[in-house]
């Protein structure tokens, strides 16, 4: 069976510090991978998606970047965090044809 791992679960970082959130998927190959952000009381906003190694598409301009160094690894990064980067970050995977998305447990990021 397929599983998705996302870590850390919570993170408190000072403004201006770097960020690296990691997501890995097991039990499938060549998945589509997604990073979503959920602000308090709001919906899920798609930040990045990837259909293959090294292929990253950005949905919204922002202070964050994403990379996919391996088939089942997706990384969300920032060189210098802003207060507005605080939120709940969710990694998800899906198959090419069937668009059902499977979400990780999320990372609660607080920038102070």
């Amino acid at each position, binding site marked *: 069976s397929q599983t998705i791992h996302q870590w850390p679960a919570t993170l408190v970082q000072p403004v201006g510090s770097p960020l690296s959130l990691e997501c890995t998927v097991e039990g499938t190959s060549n998945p*589509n991978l997604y990073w979503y952000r959920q602000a308090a009381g709001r919906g899920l906003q*798609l930040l990045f998606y990837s259909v293959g190694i090294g292929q990253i598409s950005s949905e919204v301009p922002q202070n964050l970047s994403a990379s996919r160094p391996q088939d089942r690894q997706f990384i969300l990064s920032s060189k210098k965090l802003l207060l507005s980067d605080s939120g709940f970050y969710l990694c998800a995977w899906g198959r090419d*044809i069937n*668009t*059902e998305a499977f*979400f990780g*447990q999320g990372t609660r990021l607080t920038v102070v």
Partner: protein
Amino acid sequence: QQQVKQSPQSLIVQKGGISIINCAYENTAFDYFPWYQQFPGKGPALLIAIRPDVSEKKEGRFTISFNKSAKQFSLHIMDSQPGDSATYFCAASIEGSGNTGKLIFGQGTTLQVKP
């Protein structure tokens, strides 16, 4: 045109009652409409989904009603239970090989079922 509008933002229902959440979309190319359930501090999980070739899909106490001409779909939770208290998201996407499977989410509805 990529938006999915969801209402209400919050909902309080008595145990045993019916919870109804509505969503509307503009993009007629959307052909996959899932609903996700999210408990606090957790990632969303797929609850039920529908495609436009049917007008209704039922799984247990959960039913999706789909109105293609009105570009609307809704989630009905029958016999609502306190354990159903969660945030519900509708979403839409375009299926098929070559598509990226991007889900466009509604804003979410926080449901509270009172015992």
